[in-house]
């Protein structure tokens, strides 16, 4: 033990370092404690490829705002935690963010299970949670408004498929899909959009392990559709496309971009998949916000989650400024005032937005992932989608809208 005795000089040195360290931030920030915002992204585990860039993006936005003077005269501090793509570890990390750091908001939860596990802690402690998870059930939780997400849910995706079919002047639309968690809600929302356009729909759920879909295709053709929407994944959609071609189907084909992907297009003969449309949620690459983001983080093609987390942090910072307060409740009550104010000036970043808010003007943020307008439940009401078509055996961009 005697080797570890502390003499007076060591003690003085160590304690002045400690005290100095503790005192430093309060000198540096001048007025008031810094506002704390937590990022809870997957830095390890299966979400590991996305989380680090997401956390860096939040940091980059906050650095920029701090350099421009912070919010309400206070600096912002980002605390990053790792959810390990695991709800058990995610809850422990969220507890630390909420109880020790007392963050006003947590941004960036990625896996739906982590978001569902962390959400109750947030609404109980009145902390705002912004997430990129997609499961429909998340916004059904009793979150009292303390949760918002920028990832389109299947309701919105279904509507987009329906609206696209209507725009392609399809009147009789048939939906074929294997049993998936979202097949039902997908079909309901397609039907809603088609019926609004004066058309008719029918659907068929098939077993995705079957080697052939002859009877399914017969049933499909009996409906005499002018467009078919595929709800499946690549392997079963391949078989289905082949059967339809053999049966002489001439109408339009629409599928998810993850099903009719480049691999599928390369693996079947060109005429089978020719003319097929694909749809996928997309960042709004033509927006000024997207171009700012690319410049800010120096990544050429940021993934959708990074793009969404960029919008989330911008919105949260502006909501605090608009409220004149920095609590989670203030963010909850004001986020829609800066995301979708009908008479607000369009802004694409928080720095410009904060200036306008300081002048007492209303703002309406249009982000890099889309217009970023939220429903009362916390879903986004609209998002950009990427439409492609197979032309001459290659996927060709039709539009992003």
């Amino acid at each position, binding site marked *: 033990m005697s080797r570890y005795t502390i003499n007076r000089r060591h003690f003085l040195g160590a304690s002045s370092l400690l005290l100095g360290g503790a005192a430093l931030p309060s000198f540096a920030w001048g007025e008031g404690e810094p506002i704390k915002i937590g*990022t809870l992204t997957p*830095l*390890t585990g299966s979400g590991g490829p996305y*989380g*680090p860039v997401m*956390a*860096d993006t939040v940091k980059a936005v906050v650095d920029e705002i701090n350099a421009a003077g912070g919010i309400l005269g206070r600096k912002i501090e980002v605390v*990053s*935690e*790792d959810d*390990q*793509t*695991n*709800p*058990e*570890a995610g*809850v*422990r*990390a969220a*507890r*630390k963010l909420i*109880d*020790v750091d007392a963050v006003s908001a947590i941004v960036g939860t990625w*896996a*739906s*299970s*982590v978001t*569902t*596990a962390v959400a*109750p802690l947030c609404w*109980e*402690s009145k902390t705002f949670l912004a997430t990129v998870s997609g*499961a429909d*059930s998340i916004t059904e*939780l009793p979150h009292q408004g303390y949760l918002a997400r920028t990832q389109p849910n299947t309701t919105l995706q279904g509507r987009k498929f329906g609206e696209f079919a209507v725009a392609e002047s399809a009147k009789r639309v048939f939906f074929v899909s294997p049993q998936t*968690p979202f097949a039902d809600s997908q079909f309901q929302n397609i039907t809603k959009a088609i019926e609004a356009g004066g058309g008719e729909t029918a659907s068929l759920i098939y077993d995705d392990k079957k080697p052939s879909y002859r009877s399914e295709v017969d049933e499909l053709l009996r409906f005499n559709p002018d467009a078919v929407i595929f709800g499946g994944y690549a392997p079963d959609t391949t078989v289905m496309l082949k059967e339809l071609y053999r049966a002489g189907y001439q109408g339009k084909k629409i599928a998810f971009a993850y099903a009719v992907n480049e691999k599928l297009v390369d693996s079947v003969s060109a005429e089978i998949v020719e003319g097929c449309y694909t749809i996928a949620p997309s960042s709004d690459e033509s927006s000024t916000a997207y171009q700012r983001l690319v410049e800010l983080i120096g990544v050429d093609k940021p993934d959708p989650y990074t793009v969404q987390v960029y919008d989330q942090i911008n919105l949260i910072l502006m909501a605090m400024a608009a409220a004149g307060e920095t609590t989670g409740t203030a963010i909850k009550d004001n986020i829609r005032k800066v995301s979708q104010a009908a008479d607000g000036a369009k802004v694409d970043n928080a720095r410009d937005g904060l200036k306008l808010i300081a002048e007492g003007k209303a703002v309406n943020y249009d982000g890099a992932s889309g217009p970023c307008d939220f429903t009362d439940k916390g879903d986004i009401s609209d998002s950009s989608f990427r439409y492609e078509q197979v032309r001459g055996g290659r996927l060709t961009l039709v539009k992003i809208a």
Partner: protein
Amino acid sequence: MLAYLIFALTIGGVYALLALSLNLIWGGIGLVNLGLVGFFALGAYASALLTGAGLPVLFGWGGAIVVGAVAGLVVTLATARLRDDYLAIVTLGLAEVIRLVALNERWLTNGSDGISGIQAPLKSALGNQGFNLFYLAMVSAVVLVVWLVLRRLDRSPYGRAMKAIREDQELVGFAGKNVLGFKVQAFAVSAAIAGLAGALYAHFQSYVSPDHFQPLITIYIFLAVAAGGVGRPAGGVLGAYVVVFFLELTRFLPDLVPSLAPAQFAACREILVGVALILVLRFRPQGLLPEQIVPAPKS
């Protein structure tokens, strides 16, 4: 800060129960159960489903114990001829099977969405802070009771017979003991404790999903038992709390090394867990509280 400490101690209690479960089977009778998290999951889902069907919480916990014990019985009987590495592989597979069933049997488990809104006993009456304190007290009491029972078992003739099986099961067989019987009983009790831990966890978090039950937890518990002392119940309990505090304390390291990026730091935390295990095995293989072999009383 206080709320965070209360939370960490509660999670420590759940880990301690798992460590007691593992210590009974691994330290006691020498069977390596790499599927611990599977029994944890069974208990959590059993209680979530039973209370979800309208039964009181205590029935849920009782159900979790029964389901755990029955699963333990089935596993030992199905693997009666397997030992060492072979048993370890089978139990590892079992935990994955349980996770995949939870993921795919939507009608029962709600699939990847998991079961949310699990009843939190007395939460509406006690409020958030009160509930957290109450739950900490209750989990700690359960840990205390289970620890006392297992310590009693450890020092009884039954415990000596178990440890004899661990050292040389043929010899114990020759001495007239029913080796399979001991194994089945020990495995069932161990699995029941893991099931109870799962039920306590489910009602604390109000949410379970297949993602909760990744093999990572089993590894943490092996670390806890190895660090605390294999073969001694108190060692497992101490080790579990040490592991939870180690995992939580490392979160505060970036304040000391601000130059590390969050992703680098997250990786460092995982490395630290591995390094800690290596250091324990190298410098204190017997654990913080080494096993005590109490000589049998002279008759």
